[in-house]
């Protein structure tokens, strides 16, 4: 395979750029149409309560109100049926129960009823007239508390799955998983040094700037049209169809532009409600979530309690590692403890390891994916322990990691052997970086490093290419574009066809207009939909060879194509000229591909960070930050850097400030952007990036997903830097100023690090 590319690795202007800098791009909330009604959702004021009765009569009678619905308006369905949530399945009863509560509310903000009215103000006023009688129940907010016997039970019928086996135990523990390798006891017996620590992390939110939204029209012929901002239009279609108990062919989902997702815009919240309100009123209905509801009722990422123990010999070889991970799923099972378990030791080749993971329901919103879900929590624990081990052994922390780094052929604790990966290359790039080579002086300052791993997934993708007579190509795809994927997908087609990126015109279309395409998530879009574009372009090349063969009266197999030039027997024609002659040689040329690729490569990322802590206030300043990531092949390096920088800054926010600050009765006390303090431009420095390219052998161009691995190591790297700055080990996230002050004070009163 040639690695001399003409389009891949360049930085063209993104195809949707003009729309997005002029305000012309239409996002979900921008949908306007004749007769549009506005919906508002009434939400539970309690974290845990039984709904005794709902009286909607006053709301329904309020002037301007057109319809009011509750869960009783949903059709009766088999709640045990599984529905596809994009990256995994869940029972329909959970998916539906989260959209509108059944007989119980399980978290503050849980949707209870919905109103459609002539405008959003009237809908909100009317929702306030709905009378709900609750029997308030005690709530439980943290994994460790929820696992105790006698804890308030969220689901009276939730039976624990123990190591893959169904049990009769009713508890808040949805499942306990275990992964093991070697002999853990024998492994620790070999160790000269053992470090064991407990860690706590808070619930944090993806924090996308655009709130969830949905507009639905249940037409008179029974067909439903939905316009929304989603990471997966086909998931919205399939999940809405399951909840409303109608065939998927009766729903068309049009993905509007999406204002950020990071995993949080995969679940369905509003679409079935808007559809049902439309059915009742015969008019289109739009619902836009208020920001408070986004925090209180959409899926953040799990809070967690973790214990990690690692043993090493004096020479630095790690001989045993053990992890106990208890993750908060929120109201319904499905905490990201499985990927956390699979990633906690993934960067290391360890002969003896044991991981126990617990998926625990608590009275907080049902969690969703957030960029490498589960892995940042696990890496915070593991990478902190490895840092402490390096200190105790007197070995450079990157050298310790290099000595134990996972490589091609290393068997992970969860079973599979790694294919070609770039863990060593990332660590070496970190070590050789200008940042790591530079001195760091000054009081109250520290430098920290960490590495993290994240999987990529495949999933189905489809692509259609229509050749225009002027030699440009229109590309039709179904992957909603959150961060420039139109460009990265179009560039792969351009490379095959020998065209410029600007000569491919990508459009993201509705679910009626393209083959099934999975979610924009799991670091899969540039990999899998890019692969579909590659295959569709190969299909175009094949057909164009046939057209050239017709022109020259030769066999198609006698035509060669390279760099957009078709040749045979001394004849030669460029793609553009040939495109001008497709009408006379047989009509339209349409390239198609539907793929379900295996061979997604995992990605490693490393963070290097310098911090300075103000001992008077506890404020931590990020002085310098470098993100290193193996991206396989950078299709559009500027947007690759953008992913690395964005993930790093989300990691900085997670490390230093962000948390769900809960009152004892389950109320999120900081449900606004003022109080849920995400980094502003003033809080961070420039983020240096080092792109490492270890091509993924499972992709035609070597692509690895770039969207997620970058958020895995920053939290641990910052914790390690802060530990070095203060001499105190930080084991709780966030490490906000109050937490830092407490740590400094505790250090003053005791010689034991907290």
């Amino acid at each position: 395979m040639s690695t001399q590319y003409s389009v891949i690795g360049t930085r063209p202007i993104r195809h949707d750029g003009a729309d997005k800098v002029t305000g012309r791009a239409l996002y979900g909330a921008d949908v306007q149409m004749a007769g549009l009604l506005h919906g508002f959702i009434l939400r539970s004021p309690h974290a845990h309560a039984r709904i005794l009765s709902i009286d909607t009569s006053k709301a329904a009678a309020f002037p301007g109100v057109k319809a009011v619905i509750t869960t009783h308006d949903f059709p009766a369905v088999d709640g045990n049926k599984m529905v596809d949530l994009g990256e995994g399945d869940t029972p329909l009863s959970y998916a539906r129960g989260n959209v509108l509560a059944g007989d119980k509310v399980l978290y503050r903000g849980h949707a209870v009823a919905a109103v459609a009215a002539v405008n959003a103000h009237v809908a909100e006023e009317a929702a306030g007239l709905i009378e709900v009688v609750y029997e308030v129940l005690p709530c439980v907010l943290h994994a460790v508390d929820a696992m105790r016997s006698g804890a308030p039970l969220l689901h009276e019928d939730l039976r624990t799955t123990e190591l893959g086996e169904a049990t009769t135990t009713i508890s808040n523990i949805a499942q306990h998983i275990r992964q093991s390798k070697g002999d853990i006891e024998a492994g620790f017996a070999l160790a000269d040094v053992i470090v064991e620590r407990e860690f706590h992390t808070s619930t944090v939110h993806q924090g996308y700037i655009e709130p969830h939204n949905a507009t639905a029209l249940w037409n008179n012929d029974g067909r439903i049209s939905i316009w929304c901002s989603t990471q997966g239009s086909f998931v919205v279609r399939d999940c809405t169809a399951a909840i409303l108990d109608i065939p998927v062919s009766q729903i068309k989902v049009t993905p509007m532009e999406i204002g950020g997702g990071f995993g949080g815009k995969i679940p369905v919240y509003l679409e079935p409600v808007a559809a049902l309100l439309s059915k009742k009123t015969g008019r289109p209905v739009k619902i836009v979530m208020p920001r408070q509801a986004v925090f209180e009722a959409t899926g953040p990422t799990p809070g967690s309690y973790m214990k990690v123990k690692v043993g090493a010999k004096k020479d630095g070889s790690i001989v045993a590692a053990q992890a106990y991970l208890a993750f908060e799923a929120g109201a319904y099972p499905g905490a990201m403890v499985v990927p956390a378990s699979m990633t906690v030791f993934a960067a290391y080749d360890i002969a003896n390891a044991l991981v126990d993971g617990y998926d625990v329901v608590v009275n907080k919103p049902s969690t969703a994916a957030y960029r490498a879900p589960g892995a940042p929590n696990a890496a915070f624990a593991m990478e902190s322990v490895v840092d402490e081990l390096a200190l105790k052994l007197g070995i450079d922390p990157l050298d310790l990691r290099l000595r134990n780094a996972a490589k091609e052929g290393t068997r992970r604790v969860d079973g599979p052997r790694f294919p070609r990966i770039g863990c060593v290359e990332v660590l070496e790039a970190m070590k050789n970086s200008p940042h790591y080579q530079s001195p760091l002086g000054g009081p109250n300052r520290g430098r920290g490093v960490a590495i993290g791993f994240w999987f990529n997934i495949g999933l189905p993708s489809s692509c259609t290419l229509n050749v225009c007579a002027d030699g440009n190509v229109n590309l039709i795809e179904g992957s909603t574009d959150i961060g420039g994927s139109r460009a990265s997908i179009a560039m792969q087609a351009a490379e095959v066809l020998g065209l410029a990126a600007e000569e491919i015109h990508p459009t993201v279309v509705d679910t009626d207009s393209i083959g099934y395409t999975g979610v924009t998530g799991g670091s899969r879009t540039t990999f899998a939909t890019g692969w579909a574009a590659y295959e569709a372009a190969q299909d175009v090349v094949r057909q164009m060879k046939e057209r050239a063969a017709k022109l020259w009266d030769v066999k198609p197999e006698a035509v060669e194509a390279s760099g957009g030039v078709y040749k045979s027997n001394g004849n030669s024609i460029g793609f553009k000229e040939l495109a001008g002659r497709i009408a006379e040689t047989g009509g339209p040329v349409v390239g198609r591909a539907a793929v379900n690729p295996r061979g997604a490569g995992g990605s490693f990322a490393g963070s290097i960070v310098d911090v300075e802590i103000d001992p008077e206030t506890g404020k931590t300043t990020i002085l310098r930050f470098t993100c290193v990531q193996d991206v396989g092949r950078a299709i559009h390096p500027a947007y690759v850097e953008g992913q690395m920088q964005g993930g790093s800054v989300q990691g900085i926010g997670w490390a230093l400030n962000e948390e769900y600050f809960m009152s004892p009765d389950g109320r999120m006390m900081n449900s606004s952007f003022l109080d849920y303090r995400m980094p502003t431009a003033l809080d961070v420095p420039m983020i240096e990036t080092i792109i490492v390219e270890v091509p993924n052998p499972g992709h035609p161009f070597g692509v690895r997903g770039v969207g997620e691995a970058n958020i895995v190591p920053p939290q641990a790297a910052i914790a390690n830097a802060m530990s070095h700055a203060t001499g105190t080990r930080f084991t709780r996230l966030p490490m906000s100023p109050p937490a830092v002050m407490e740590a400094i004070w505790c250090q003053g009163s005791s010689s034991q690090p907290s």
Partner: protein
Amino acid sequence: MRSKTHIQTTINGEERDFLCEPRQSLLEVLRDTLNLTGTKEGCNDGNCGSCTVTLDGRLVTSCLVLAVEAEGREIGTIEGVAQGNHLHPIQKAFLENAALQCGVCTPGFIVATKVLLEKEPDPSEERIRFFLANNLCRCTGYDKIVQAVQAAALNLRGTKETQA
């Protein structure tokens, strides 16, 4: 039906009028009544900056301005930044520097940047970060936005010197 107030205002240099309820925000009227949906709603409480517009040249979050306050005032939105078919140098710089990912915060950043560079043609990195701290971006980590503002500032200063 609640009674509505008739408001006469100027938006992007054009005289406009609309009817609104006293409780409606300028953001709501811009988007839902006047179909100027380039101004985005992210929080509706003045903390994200997505709805940033100018009111008599001053930056405001339009979710915190009542629509009736637009009476007799001049409003500038993202739709008025490009000159006809020509992108403003700030818009070009955002594209050339890949300073947007999802793009939903971009209109607010561009409107704010325009005010900054009109007042201060050569701001330091620190000054750019301070001025734009009213606008949240969750995708980019701000690095490329700051670089785009620096590139636009350089370009605009060059244009001015050429004209002078």
